[in-house]
C-alpha cells in the first residue's frame, strides 16, 4: 500500500480477532462444504432447491399431529441409508421410535439378503444417535458436548456428523418465555445462535421443530414469537388435512428464495 502507517498498525491487529473472509473464499466454502442433503420427500426437496442445506438452520412448524416427527424420522432414515453421514437426534418428548425408523429404512432400500438384512439395518441405525433432552439447559449442555465431539477430528468421512435434528425446540423454550422477562428470550436467542454457529462451522444441516399456538382472532401462528422469526435460515410450515396422507409444505421464509411457494407430498408411512 502507499503508506506504511496503516500497515504497521494493522500488523499489531492482525494477530488479534478472527480474520475477514473475502467473497471468493466464502463462495468456495459454500460450494465445497455446504451441500444440499436430500430428504427423500420429493416435494420437499424441490421446494428447498435440493434438500436440507448444510450450514442452514431449518425450522419446520405445524399443528399437532401434522406429521412433523414422522418427517424428522424419515429424513434421518433417508440420510442414514444414503450414507451422507451420521445424524444426531435430540428428542424432547420421547417421540423417537426405533421400530418406526427400522421400518422406514426397510422401505427406503431394497432388501438384498434376508439373513443379512437385520445386521445391515442395525449398522445403518448405528449412524443415528438419539439423545433425550428435557430442558433448555440440558440442550445447551448437549450442544456444547456435540461441539467438543466435532472438535476431536478423529472421525472418518462417512461417520462424520452431517445433520442435527431437534424435536422439538419449542417445547423446551415456550415454558420459559414470559412476556416481560428477558431471561427466557435471551436463552432462546442464545440457543438459536449456538445452533447457527454449529451449523456454519461444522457444516451441519440443522432441522428444528416448532409447534403452533393460537394467535389473534382465532388464527394459529408459530410459537416462540417475533424474536424467533429472525433466527432460522429457512422456515417451513406444514399442514395436513385429517385422515389424509398428503401434506402441504409452504415456505415461510428463505434466505435466497421468495416465500409463499408450496409443495405437496405423500407423508411416508
Amino acid at each position, binding site marked *: *500500500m502507499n503508506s506504511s502507517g*496503516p*500497515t504497521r*498498525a*494493522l500488523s499489531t*491487529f*492482525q494477530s*488479534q*480477532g*478472527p*480474520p*475477514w*473472509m*473475502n*467473497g*471468493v*473464499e*466464502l*463462495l468456495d*466454502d*459454500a460450494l465445497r462444504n455446504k451441500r444440499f442433503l436430500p430428504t427423500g420427500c420429493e416435494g420437499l426437496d424441490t421446494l428447498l*432447491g435440493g434438500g436440507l442445506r448444510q450450514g442452514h438452520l431449518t425450522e419446520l412448524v405445524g399443528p399437532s399431529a401434522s406429521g412433523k416427527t414422522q418427517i424428522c424420522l424419515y429424513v434421518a432414515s433417508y440420510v442414514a441409508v444414503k450414507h451422507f453421514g451420521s445424524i444426531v437426534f435430540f428428542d424432547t418428548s420421547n417421540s423417537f421410535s426405533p421400530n418406526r425408523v427400522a421400518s422406514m429404512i426397510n422401505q427406503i432400500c431394497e432388501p438384498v439378503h434376508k439373513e443379512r438384512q437385520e445386521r445391515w439395518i442395525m449398522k445403518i441405525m448405528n449412524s443415528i444417535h438419539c439423545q433425550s433432552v428435557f430442558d433448555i439447559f440440558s440442550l445447551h449442555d448437549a450442544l456444547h458436548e456435540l461441539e467438543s465431539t466435532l472438535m476431536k477430528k478423529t472421525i472418518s468421512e462417512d461417520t462424520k456428523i452431517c445433520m442435527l435434528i431437534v424435536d422439538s425446540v419449542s417445547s423446551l423454550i415456550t415454558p420459559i418465555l414470559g*412476556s*416481560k422477562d*428477558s*431471561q427466557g*428470550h*435471551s*436463552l*432462546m*436467542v*442464545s440457543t438459536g*445462535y449456538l445452533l*447457527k*454457529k454449529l451449523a*456454519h462451522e461444522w457444516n451441519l444441516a440443522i432441522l428444528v421443530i416448532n409447534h403452533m399456538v393460537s394467535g389473534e382472532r382465532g388464527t394459529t401462528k408459530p410459537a416462540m414469537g*417475533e*424474536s424467533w*422469526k*429472525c433466527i432460522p*435460515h429457512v422456515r417451513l410450515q406444514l399442514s395436513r388435512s385429517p385422515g389424509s396422507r398428503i401434506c402441504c409444505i409452504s415456505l415461510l*421464509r428463505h*434466505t*435466497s*428464495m*421468495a*416465500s409463499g411457494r408450496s409443495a405437496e407430498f405423500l407423508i411416508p408411512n
Partner: protein
Amino acid sequence: MFARMELERPALFLPPLHRVPIRAGNVVEITGPSSSAKSEILLQAAVNCILPKEWNGVHFGGLERAVAFIDLDCRFDVLRLYDVLKLRIMSAHGSAHGTHGDLIEICPTKSLMVSQADLLDDDLLLSCMKRFFYIRCYSSSEFLSTLKTMHPGYISSSEGLAVKLYILIIDSIGAFHWNDRACQLPTKEDRTWKKLSLEKLTESVVQEINKIREVQPLLVLASKVTLFGAAVPTNGAQRFPLR
C-alpha cells in the same frame, strides 16, 4: 440528524445517484418488521458498491470499492449475493443491447440459462467478489472487538493486505438485544470491573463506529428489526449522531 428510511425500490439504490441523497460519512438505519427485505436492500447496496463503473465497454455504474459486511444475524447466504451480482451484470448487458431492462424477476441459481452464462465474465465476477469482505459475530463482545480491530479504517484481508473501506454494512444491529439485556458480567469488586449493561454496550458500539468514521469517511448501513408489542427496544442509546 438521524436518517432512517424504508426503501421500496432497492434496485435503484446507487449511492450517491439515488433519490435519497446519501453520501460517504452518512449513517443509515434501515428498519422494518421481520421479512421486509431489509437484508435484500443491504445485499443490493453491496453489489452496487463492488461492481466496477465500466467493464469491457458495458456500463455498470458501480463504485468499485470495498465493502465490509458484519453479519450479526448470521443468516447471510453468499450464493444469494453471487446470484444478485450475476443478475445485475446481465441486466446491465441487457440494457446495453437495447432490450427491456426492467426489474428482472429473482430466480434461483439453477434456472440460469446456459446462453446467458456466456455474458458472465469470470474475471469480472472474481474481481467483484474480491472486494466483498465478510465477518460473523456471535455476541456483542465479538462485535465490539471486530470494530476495535477496524479502528484505523482499514481491514486486513487474508492475504495480509490492508484494504481501505468505503461501505460498512451491519446486519442487523440489535441482534444481541435480548442477550445483552439479560446478561450482566459478574462483578467481583465494583471498583475494578464495570457492569456491561445494555446501554453501555450500545454506547461503546456507537463510539467505535464514530472512531472509524473520524479516520475514514465511510457509509454505514445498518438494518434493524422492529419487534412489536412490549418488547420494543429503546432507541435512546442507539441514535447515531450524524455529522
